[in-house]
């Protein structure tokens, strides 16, 4: 590869000049990002409980939508059972804490355990599942989620229909911080992934899997890796959530409306974009706050109608449409 060619590649990746290391660290963009992160981290010290929990639910929705988008938007695999990883993370953390009788000190470890367990389940399930494509994969994920639900409800060891109780602790500020860190980690990962070898492999799989396979990309391995990552973040969120509500049962863990929210948020924001689910989550949590407060029974109707209307009229996503018409550059 010639020097010029290499520069072109670096320029495409947005790493124009590596010799300006010091000024890159202190570039205006990085300073703004740092300030925004610090601002969000200081929220628990200044805001009221309601604002904290509202922001936390925005981050939860954002992470869930982004991880669904990782499979659907970047890889082209629609999962209708993605809430299963939320549930697996929640159950893994709950089982760890209740069976070993751990206290609040195990917060971080149990959350990490939830993420890793969910990732492991995804890896194991993904090995046979990701051979399938298109609708077969979608139905299989839905079946898997229902299967997990049936197992959890009917097995006494998992708490059965009663569920599992965790030690009752008040951790809202900590929960906020943890969820924010997961959220930030998820979006920095996606931002990095987009222009990495991994991201390009996924893009090639989305465009033409057979062509990708025949040009030497180990597609099955990359799909499994993507699936494991897409399960890791919901697993973390599920484990954090179980600490927050101190209780988990199969209905709450595998509820269908979680995946409906993920799809609606992603389609609203824009399939295959990094910022789409972020802005989509913000709009949706505000909408759901409003709907739950005034007419909770209409919530899922509105979500379903939104999904249909958006795909019918703006298949690229509302946020993407607006950003494109304003000529704003986005990722």
């Amino acid at each position, binding site marked *: 590869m010639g020097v010029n060619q290499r520069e072109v590649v670096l320029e495409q990746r947005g790493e124009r000049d590596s010799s300006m290391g010091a000024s890159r660290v202190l570039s205006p963009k990085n300073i703004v990002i740092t300030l925004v992160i610090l601002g969000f981290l200081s929220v628990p010290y200044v805001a009221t409980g309601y604002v904290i929990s509202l922001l936390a639910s925005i981050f939860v929705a954002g992470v869930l939508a982004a991880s669904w988008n990782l499979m659907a938007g970047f890889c082209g695999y629609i999962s209708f059972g993605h809430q299963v990883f939320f549930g697996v993370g929640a159950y893994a953390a709950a089982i760890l804490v209740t069976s070993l009788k751990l206290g609040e000190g195990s917060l971080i470890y149990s959350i990490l355990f939830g993420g890793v367990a969910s990732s492991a389940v995804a890896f194991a399930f993904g090995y046979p599942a990701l051979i399938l494509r298109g609708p077969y994969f979608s139905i299989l994920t839905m079946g898997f989620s229902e299967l997990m639900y049936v*197992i959890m409800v009917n097995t006494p060891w998992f708490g059965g229909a009663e569920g599992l109780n965790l030690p009752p602790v008040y951790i809202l500020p900590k929960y906020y911080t943890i969820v924010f860190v997961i959220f930030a980690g998820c979006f920095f990962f996606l931002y990095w992934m987009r222009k990495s070898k991994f991201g390009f492999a996924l893009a090639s799989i989305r465009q033409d899997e057979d062509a990708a396979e025949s040009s030497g990309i180990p597609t099955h391995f990359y799909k499994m890796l993507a699936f494991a990552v897409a399960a890791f973040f919901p697993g973390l969120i599920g484990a954090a959530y179980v600490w927050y509500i101190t209780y988990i049962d199969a209905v709450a863990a595998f509820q269908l409306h979680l995946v409906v929210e993920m799809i609606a948020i992603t389609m609203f924001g824009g399939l295959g974009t990094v910022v789409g689910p972020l802005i989509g989550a913000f709009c949706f949590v505000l909408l759901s706050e409003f709907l739950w407060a005034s007419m909770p029974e209409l919530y899922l109707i509105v979500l379903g109608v939104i999904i249909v209307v958006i795909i019918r009229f703006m298949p690229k996503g509302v946020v993407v449409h607006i950003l494109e018409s304003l000529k704003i550059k986005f990722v």
Partner: protein
Amino acid sequence: MGADFIQVLMYSVFLGGIYAITAVGLNLIFGVMKIVNFSHGVLVMIGAYLAFWSWKLLGISPYIMIFGCFIVLGLMGIGLYALLKKFESDPDFELLSLIITFGFSIAATNIVRYVWTSRFRGVFVIMKSFEIGGITVSTARFLPFVVGLLVTLGLYVYLKKSYIGKSLRAVSQDPSAAQLMGVNKMHVYLISMGLGCGLAGVAGGLFSTIYAIYPEMGFSFTVLAFCVVVLGGMGSFKGCLIASFVLAISEGMTGFFFGSGWKPFATYAIIIAVLTIRGHRLAAR
């Protein structure tokens, strides 16, 4: 124990008739248009409610209402096709049609739940039962089985012999070649969508006469119908028929031996096993 077992086995076989109608409709749409109608089970649910309300309010027998269900749900299917038609040339057609039908089924389920609440309802049909070899067979449960077999066989003959059936099969094999031979593709798509969704309505109407209906039943029907199609093979009527009986029996037996809480386990375990084992062949399509 022995008599109970035979009773459960028999009712499972009868339920298989309803599964067969549902799955044949999905099979038709999936085979011809290559899209998954994710809202298929929800259409079954709507058909069931239609039969229930026309029985409750107007006093129409559900067995006559299945024709009404066929027409209404068929029109609904054509409406659904109109929604999807815009993306036909889109490279993401498969992906978008999956999500759009998913969104439709979420909206429809929750509208039904909002309007008619989640209460379990059912049509009460009083019919004499008859006895074969010491086992009592209820006619109300036997009829859907007969209708299911008749519809499946009738559709099979229709698709084999008639001109429309031949053009349907031609499009499912190669859309562009069929068009070059003078088949109207749009026509064929409309017919397959209308027929398939109409059959979902028939299945719903029959289902309402023997089991309780509720808004959330749609999703299990979608997974089930898809499971039948995968197990029986796409485009195969014989396979579809056998697979629906296999699934219905395995569901009934799981409920009989392990308690009714485990009933859905059988279907999901079978579909996961089938897709895992046959996955390589399905992916090659």
